[in-house]
């Protein structure tokens, strides 16, 4: 974990319509690291990702990607959005969506060379999407769509892959498959990964570090360092208990027994 970090987030504060969303957020991601961006809905995860992507301007602070400050089109970053508009009727095959990752910003109809077509096939293969490469993306299951979106993000050979809640709305098995897939690719291609999730448990087997977001503030480090009663109580500003049950971690509000957050993670949780 030495060398220059692929991502440096330093002193980021964001105000949106008079409300402070992020308070002096700072952390680093080294090349090839797998980092979980953990926090409940509304904690500020999406805003933080949008700042890193250059879609949102911070009120103060700065972001360095690969040692350089941000600009809009950053070829070092691959992005897997949480939502994409996909009607079942959309005339778009899985391979077309991956192809747009290569040249979606260019003018005109696509005319791809044999080498580019081969690259698309390789990316589809890398995410185990070959069997549905010619299906309409809108007809694919959630897990299959995530695979295609990951291939779309990876085809431009980024150094940092950002995934916004890729596990939301997935069944347990697809959840596990996506986590294993991303971890495998990250290792193989030496790509750093920042993956946001409201439940850290599916990510625990593969994460090197966590960036824990609560109330617009973050704590970062290894899971053992960050996900502790002391650190998270300080982060939340009130007492929470970190409970380990069968290799799963629960964060619950102190004193009363109600689950403080993560309660929306449903079946994958308890």
């Amino acid at each position: 974990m030495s060398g220059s970090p692929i991502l440096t987030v330093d002193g980021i504060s964001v105000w949106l319509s008079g409300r402070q969303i992020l308070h002096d957020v700072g952390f680093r991601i080294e090349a090839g690291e797998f980092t979980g961006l953990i926090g409940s809905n509304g904690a500020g995860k999406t805003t933080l990702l949008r700042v890193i992507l250059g879609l949102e301007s911070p009120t103060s602070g700065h972001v360095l990607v690969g040692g350089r400050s941000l600009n809009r089109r950053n070829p070092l970053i691959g992005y897997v959005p949480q939502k994409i508009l996909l009607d079942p009727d959309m005339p778009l095959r899985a391979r077309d969506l991956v192809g747009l990752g290569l040249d979606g910003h260019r003018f005109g109809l696509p005319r791809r060379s044999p080498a580019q077509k081969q690259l698309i096939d390789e990316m589809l293969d890398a995410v185990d999407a070959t069997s549905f490469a010619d299906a309409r993306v809108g007809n694919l299951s959630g897990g299959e769509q995530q695979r295609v979106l990951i291939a779309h993000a990876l085809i431009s050979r980024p150094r940092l892959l950002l995934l916004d809640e890729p596990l939301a709305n997935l069944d347990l098995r697809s959840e596990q498959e996506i986590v294993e897939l991303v971890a495998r690719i990250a290792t193989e291609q030496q790509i750093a990964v920042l993956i946001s999730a409201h439940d850290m448990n599916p990510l625990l087997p593969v994460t090197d570090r966590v960036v824990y977001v609560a109330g617009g503030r973050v704590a970062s480090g290894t899971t053992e360092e960050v996900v502790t009663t002391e650190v998270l109580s300080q982060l939340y500003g009130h007492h929470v208990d970190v409970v380990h049950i069968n290799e799963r971690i629960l964060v619950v509000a102190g004193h009363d027994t109600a689950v403080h957050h993560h309660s929306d993670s449903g079946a994958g949780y308890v």
Partner: protein
Amino acid sequence: MTVPGSLAPVFEPGFFSSSPVHVALIVGGVVAVVSGVVGTFTVMRGQAFAGHSLADIGTAGGSAAFLVGISPLYGFVTMNLIAAGAMELIGIRRPRGRDLATGIVLGAALGLAALFLYWDTTSSSTTGATINVLFGSIFELPSSLVPVIAVFSVVATGIVLVLYRPLLLSSLSPDLAATRGVPVRLVGIGYLIALAVAVSLSAVTIGAILSTALLIGPAAAALRLTKRAPLAMAIAAGVGVAATWLGILLAYDSYDWPPRHQGWPVSFFVVTLVFAFYIVIHLSVRRAGGHRPNPVSAGAA
């Protein structure tokens, strides 16, 4: 041109020698191509309401053009471009804001249209304006307008073809497009200009009220027939041209038809043909089981 004997009942005498028919075939064909290409994106982007609203809004321009004695085409184009600009300014990018913005602009423009059409109908020289604006005037287009229509057609089709990939990407996810360096807002404005022009062209041929049929119908059918967007645009254009030409032929033939032996309007035939085609495609694709419902997924926006 002579017609072989066996086809004589189909092609009524004079069909191929009539100058208004020539103009109608050329303009109708070109406009159908534009509508198919632009309409494919209109359907993909879920902007059918915006497309139809532009057509209605354009009636204010079309009816005003009659008052000042110029071709309604110029009125439609001017009004639609203004309306497209207004929608963009009010906030067309979010689906909800988009519908509201469209509705607000639509209401204001229809008020103007009501006023202008009233003036048109009460002035003896422009009494036919209402029918003309609302239901089209494909047999009354002067041939001098053909080059103008050609230029507008090239502009609208060209914008969509040039912007094809950035437009497709920003239709899927504006954020994703922005991170790839696509100027999402500019691309959206470019597409709106193409839509405004396409709707105007369609309005002068089959009428403001019916233009949506040509914009949406062939494209919606095409999206069911192919999973490749460029092919969908080609199919939509082809279906539109076929419906328009067949509609022109039927309208020409209908001069002998009951109940009044004065001919049926082209717009009726075009719209009915498009509708019938869509229904056939809809039923046959469904029966073939080509669409399994979209499961709960991260993609269902």
